[in-house]
């Protein structure tokens, strides 16, 4: 006989109450672990996307700079409104190291004619984005595929590939997991401009500077070029983080409400359990249990309740993190590609510790009440 066994068996006295409390705690744990995962995952996904982009500054069409940058990061359809002749003044700007011109648009591709994003890129693109795994610039009539699209269409290097009725040769397939752009089709800038009927136009220019610490200074110089909008990656990251902080506050509010509901559930379960067992607790006191031992046993029950609820919530958190990530991304104006919820052992252990602590705190009142039970509660009424 041990206190853990006694506490566990005490909980099983009301299986329905035990399961209901566990489920409520599990929901609270799920929201908690997803929140923790979002805190860690969003920033790392954004930083990963920005690292993959390889640029310190983006030159984009006039309009909302953050929307445009988000589209570039996650791979989307961006209007082509930057004139190609603006490349030269960009290249000549002091502090600029490498420049890569990009055009993005959508076309039906492959045998199923499914619409995908086409990225037309110049000869520097593979240098700025080495994680894609492309070894050389794309030649005319050649395409390179993101890993996912190549798997979906079961294609390999050397196969023919149809885009809007034109046939191209697959020259490369991006490395698996090397980048977030796994659903994109890459091709030569000129070929893409021709395909998109946008000769002489660009969607954006990726700019790498000599010294990343001087990005703001270089950006100011670039802003003097007419009809060009410039944004540094640092500004972009800060703005996107502001967007997501709203979502974080909303999730945190939901979390607080759920924790309150779970706490009330635990409190009610334990309070009614103690009230129901007054006689038994009195008997325990009569047979020599100290009030400290009764408090410990009652607290252990709450901790076990919290433990099981948290474990269920954590398992659900691991299972549902991808779906939750997609759901949250839909509610955000901009978010990086890939999962924005990253759940690891640290978040799991934190969730477990927090939930057990909350369970113990929520049931402290009933536990104290149990501990103050007099041994005479076991005696028959006079």
């Amino acid at each position, binding site marked *: *006989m*041990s*206190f853990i*066994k*006694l506490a566990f*068996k*005490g909980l*099983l*006295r009301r299986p329905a109450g035990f399961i209901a409390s566990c489920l409520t705690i599990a929901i609270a744990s799920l929201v908690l672990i997803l929140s923790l995962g979002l805190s860690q995952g969003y920033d790392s996904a954004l930083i990963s996307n920005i690292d993959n982009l390889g640029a310190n500054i983006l030159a984009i069409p006039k309009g909302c700079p953050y929307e445009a940058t988000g589209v570039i990061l996650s791979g989307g359809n961006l209007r082509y409104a930057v004139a190609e002749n603006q490349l030269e003044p960009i290249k000549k700007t002091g502090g600029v190291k490498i420049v890569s011109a990009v055009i993005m648009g959508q076309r039906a591709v492959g045998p199923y004619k499914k619409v995908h994003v086409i990225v037309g890129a110049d000869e520097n693109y593979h240098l700025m984005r080495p994680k894609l795994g492309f070894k050389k610039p794309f030649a005319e009539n050649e395409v390179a595929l993101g890993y996912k699209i190549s798997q979906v269409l079961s294609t390999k290097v050397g196969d023919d590939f149809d885009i809007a009725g034109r046939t191209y040769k697959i020259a490369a397939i991006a490395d698996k997991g090397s980048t977030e752009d796994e659903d994109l089709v890459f091709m030569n800038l000129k070929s893409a401009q021709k395909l998109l009927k946008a000769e002489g136009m660009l969607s954006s220019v990726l700019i790498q500077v000599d010294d990343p610490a001087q990005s703001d200074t270089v950006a100011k110089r670039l802003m003097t070029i007419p009809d060009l909008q410039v944004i540094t990656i640092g500004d972009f990251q800060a703005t996107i983080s502001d967007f997501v902080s709203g979502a974080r506050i909303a999730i945190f509010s939901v979390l607080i409400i759920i924790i309150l509901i779970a706490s009330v559930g635990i409190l009610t379960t334990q309070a009614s359990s103690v009230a129901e067992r007054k*006689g*038994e607790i*009195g*008997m*325990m*006191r*009569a*047979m*020599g*249990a*100290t*009030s400290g*031992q009764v408090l410990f046993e009652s607290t252990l029950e709450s901790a076990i309740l919290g433990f099981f609820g948290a474990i269920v919530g954590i398992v659900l958190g691991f299972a549902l993190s991808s779906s939750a990530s997609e759901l949250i991304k839909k509610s955000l104006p901009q978010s990086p590609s890939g999962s924005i919820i990253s759940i690891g052992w640290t978040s799991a252990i934190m969730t477990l510790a927090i939930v057990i602590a909350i369970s113990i705190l929520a049931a402290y009142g009933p536990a104290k009440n149990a501990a103050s039970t*007099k*041994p*005479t509660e*076991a*005696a*028959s*009424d*006079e």
Partner: protein
Amino acid sequence: MSDTIIAKGISKSFKRGTETIHAIQDISLNIGKGEMLSIMGRSGSGKTTLLSCIGMLENIDSGSLVLEGRNIKDLSEAQRTILRRELMGFVFQRFFLIPTLTAYENVALPGLFAGKKLGKDHIMELLEMVGVSQRYDHRPGQMSGGEMQRVAIARALALDPPVIIADEPTGNLDTANAEAVFGLFRKLASQGKTIIIATHSQKLAKDCDRVVELMDGRITRDEKN
């Protein structure tokens, strides 16, 4: 016969609103080792309060109480709890077995609170002695009232206390089971345990060595059978 319990002029009262209830008043009682004493009286006569005071479940307001040579007046609650473990075993009308524990586990429970691991042989011996060893792995819900009360008696004996206090132990039992339980107490008394039983049953009280009757918190009869 040496006295295990010496009560001198003990009183206990309770507040109920503005009213003071004098549950027991000026009770003096010496109970010898191995004596089987029954306390009788109507409901509200003070039987349970007297048992609670002797069993250290309640502190007395006045008088003195010596248990096994130790004066327990003015002991703190924690000290009373520890002494209670050593000296007392309790059996109540409502058995208060833990419904989710087996008979074996219920008997092992006092050992948990005393920080002593009770041996399997010891627990099985106790269950054997009270006649329910074959039910050791049954939960209270799977046992009859008589069997549950036997398990409760085995639990009271788990730490081998010199005194057993039983408050209406047969109140929930039929005649046959009540007599069997009384037989068990008789056997324990013959082994040197001091047994104090509160009962309404004249018939069972006659089987005890001595009968004490209470009325309005005072002893009105104290006779040996």
